[in-house]
């Protein structure tokens, strides 16, 4: 049983958002003392993969696409007990992330299950999982929270707009993972972190995986501008005794034609 979890590095919201701004010259987010870590959505995917493997068996390989320094997120994946990891090392604009991930998975002989985060906390497109499924020719399942079973019949619990449904899948598949009470990522222990530090990280060159000579490798969109929208919200405070505050709040709510 081969499980792949696709992860990415993102800005750590908990430590570096005080002076969030866009650098007009580079059109990139500029934050003083920016810290990066594994994207919170991908961490949930790792947790679901690990819960499945610990119950059923198999091996998990974490994949990430990026420059050399991106391997921090793979160390984090090792601290969350993945078995192997691969950095798909890029050197400039090449194939899409989904194309590179698909090529790497094919390189390793294909997958039983491929998991991705539901979206990402930076670009937030949520396109890598579905696009990856298409490149691999596998079915895609959205918003899984839990997986059971084996290759004869996997059972996936998925969040829907109105609740949860249970899907039976009898072919390898790609899925996006969403958060639930059952899959809150377990924080690594110091021992896990030490072990992760020594773990071997495999490297595949993006240029070798997807030579640029192929067709359809171009990115089809180009960023022309990024900016922070102006918000004109200024907070009006209601002071006074609690009943005065409550009265002011009630008047405010009524002024919105709510609670008539």
């Amino acid at each position, binding site marked *: 049983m081969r499980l792949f979890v696709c992860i990415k590095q993102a800005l750590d919201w908990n430590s570096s958002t005080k002076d969030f701004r866009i650098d007009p010259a580079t059109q990139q987010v500029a934050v003083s003392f920016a810290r990066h870590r594994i994207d919170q959505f991908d961490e949930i995917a790792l947790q679901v993969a690990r819960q499945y493997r610990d119950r059923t068996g198999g091996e998990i390989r974490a994949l990430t696409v990026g420059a050399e320094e991106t391997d921090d997120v793979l160390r984090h994946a090792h601290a969350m007990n993945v078995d192997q990891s691969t950095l798909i090392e890029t050197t400039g604009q090449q194939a899409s992330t989904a194309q590179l991930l698909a090529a790497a998975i094919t390189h390793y002989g294909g997958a039983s299950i491929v998991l991705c985060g539901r979206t990402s906390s930076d670009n937030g497109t949520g*396109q890598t999982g*579905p696009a990856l499924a298409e490149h691999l020719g596998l079915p895609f399942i959205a918003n899984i929270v839990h997986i059971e079973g084996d290759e004869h019949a996997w059972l996936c619990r998925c969040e829907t707009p109105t609740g949860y449904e249970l899907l039976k899948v009898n072919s390898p598949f790609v899925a996006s993972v969403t*958060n639930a009470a059952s899959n809150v990522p377990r924080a690594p222990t110091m021992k896990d972190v030490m072990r992760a530090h020594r773990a071997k990280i495999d490297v595949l060159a993006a240029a070798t995986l997807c030579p640029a000579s192929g067709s359809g490798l171009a990115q*089809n969109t180009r960023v022309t501008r990024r900016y*922070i929208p102006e918000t004109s*919200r200024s907070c*009006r*405070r*209601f002071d006074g005794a609690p009943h005065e505050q409550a009265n002011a*709040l009630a008047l405010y709510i009524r002024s919105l034609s709510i609670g008539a």
Partner: protein
Amino acid sequence: MKILAIATPLDHSGRIDELMHAACAAAPEGAADIHLLLTGEHAANDGMCAAGARVYRLPNPMSGAISPDALLDIAQRACEILDPALLLLSADTLGLQLAPRLAVRTQAAYVSGCCGFERTASGRLDFVRPIYGGRALEVLESTAALTIATIKPKSFADSARRDYTANSTVETLAIAWPSPSSAITRMASDTPHGREGPDLENARVIVSGGRGLGNAGGYAELRRLAHVLDGAVGASRAAVDAGWIAASSQVGQTGTSVAPELYIAVGISGAVQHIAGMSASRNIIAINTDEEAPIFGFANVGVVADYRVIIPALISELAKKTA
């Protein structure tokens, strides 16, 4: 420019209106060539507001749930027949998985969660979308012949309505209904996830609680207030992680993104992940004992107070006026 909007079975008529508003916003002035394909069991007049648009239905749709794979095949076939320059889908569970796959198949540009359009001086249509959980916006240029955009819910809800004249004809698009996928079988559907009141995404009012509630019992007060305001109860991630309320109630970047008329944040400090999911709310009230809490920076109205005192007082104030 030919624009095709595809309404999936998840799109209720309000969502179809939004797709049509988005299509009108994208169309060059006076040169709208808008097409709408209804793939679900939409009521006969759904999409009629789209007059000016040509409305299509599929022949003999099967009853019951349609698999995403079948919809993907249908969308691909519709692209081949109608050859649009812009294809619109809702940015919901279904649209967000169909659009990237369709973009791979058709070598299209993909714009996820589009919330606006800009026309450049040269007349090119650019696409606006939120990044970093709504903290910033980016403007994208498409470099492909076909652009597929998923439309962020509520983004075009209030767009200036064009003067629609009723369109009474609905055509049939000759697409053979694909056979159901054999790889995926639905075993059990929709265990409701125990949300209370109206669902978060559609509620006009949301009363949301965070770590500041102190314990799970605090939600009883919030539920009472939500009940009075006919609203839904939400939560921050901290409260969900503490096990005080179901994960399905979570508002924020990892939970549900909401844009109600009124959002009442109770004991929520205002972590960016939470703000990302609710900052589009029309009006925000913050109730918190910590006057330094970042949430006040995002609220229209704030009260530094203990919710255990304020909320019962507010409920009785609201009751007073209706009596």
